[in-house]
C-alpha cells in the first residue's frame, strides 16, 4: 500500500499586515514599525514567515535597507554587539 504523501496544511492563512491596515505606511524613517519585520539578529524576516504580500515585502526590503544606511536600524546584532 502506498503511504499517503498528502502535505498537511497548518492553521489559517496569514494576511499581509500592510494590506489589512491601509494606514500602516512603510517608511525607512520609522524603525519602530520596521522592527516587527526583522529578527532579533537584525535580518529581514522572510515573507513566508511574516505573511507580508510580495509587493509590500519589496517596499519593506527597500525601507529596511535605507534605514540601515542611516544607522536607524542595525545591519546585524550579535549577543555582545
Amino acid at each position: 500500500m502506498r503511504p499517503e504523501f498528502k502535505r498537511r496544511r497548518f492553521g489559517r492563512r496569514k494576511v499581509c499586515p500592510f494590506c489589512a491596515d491601509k494606514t500602516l505606511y512603510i517608511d525607512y524613517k520609522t524603525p519602530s514599525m520596521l522592527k516587527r519585520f526583522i529578527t532579533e539578529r537584525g535580518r529581514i524576516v522572510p515573507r513566508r514567515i511574516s505573511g507580508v504580500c510580495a509587493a509590500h515585502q519589496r517596499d519593506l526590503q527597500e525601507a529596511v535597507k535605507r534605514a540601515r544606511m542611516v544607522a536607524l536600524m542595525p545591519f546585524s546584532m550579535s549577543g555582545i554587539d
Partner: protein
Amino acid sequence: MILARSYETIIIAKPDFEAESIAKLQDRLLKAIGDVGGVDLKLVDWGRRKLAYPIDGHRKGNYFYWGFIAAPAALAEVHRHLKISSDVIRFQTVALTESVPLESFDVTKEKERVEALTPDPQDDEEIARRDRRDRRRRRDDEDGDFGDEGMMMDEEDEG
C-alpha cells in the same frame, strides 16, 4: 524650464558638532539650491540619537532631516558640500517624486507634507538596556577580577 525633483536628505552630524559650522554648511546648501534652481522646504533637527552601529567611532549622532526641491545640478552641489564638511559623518538622499518642471511644484503643499513629519520616537527601553550593558562592561573592565566575582556569586547562592 528647469526639471526638478522633491528630495529628502538625512544628515548625521558628529554628536559634538559645532553649531557654527553646521550653520555655515546650511547657508552653503541653501545657496547651492538657490543658485542652480530649487526650493528649500524645511530643515528639521531630530536631535542626538543613538546610532544602530558605530560610524567612524561615533556611537551617537545628531540627525537632521532636510526636505527640498532641486534640479540635478543643484543636488550634485549639495552632495559636494556634504562630502566636504568634516562635521557630517553620513548622509542619504531619497528622491520622492519624478522629474517635473520646477514651476509645477505646489510648494505650500510640499511644505505642509514636510511639516507633518515627526521623527520616530527612540526606543527608550532598548537604549536604557544598552546603556546599562555598556556601564556594566566598563565596570568589569576597570575591576575585572574574576576571584572577587566568583566569591560574590557564591554568597548570592547561599542567601
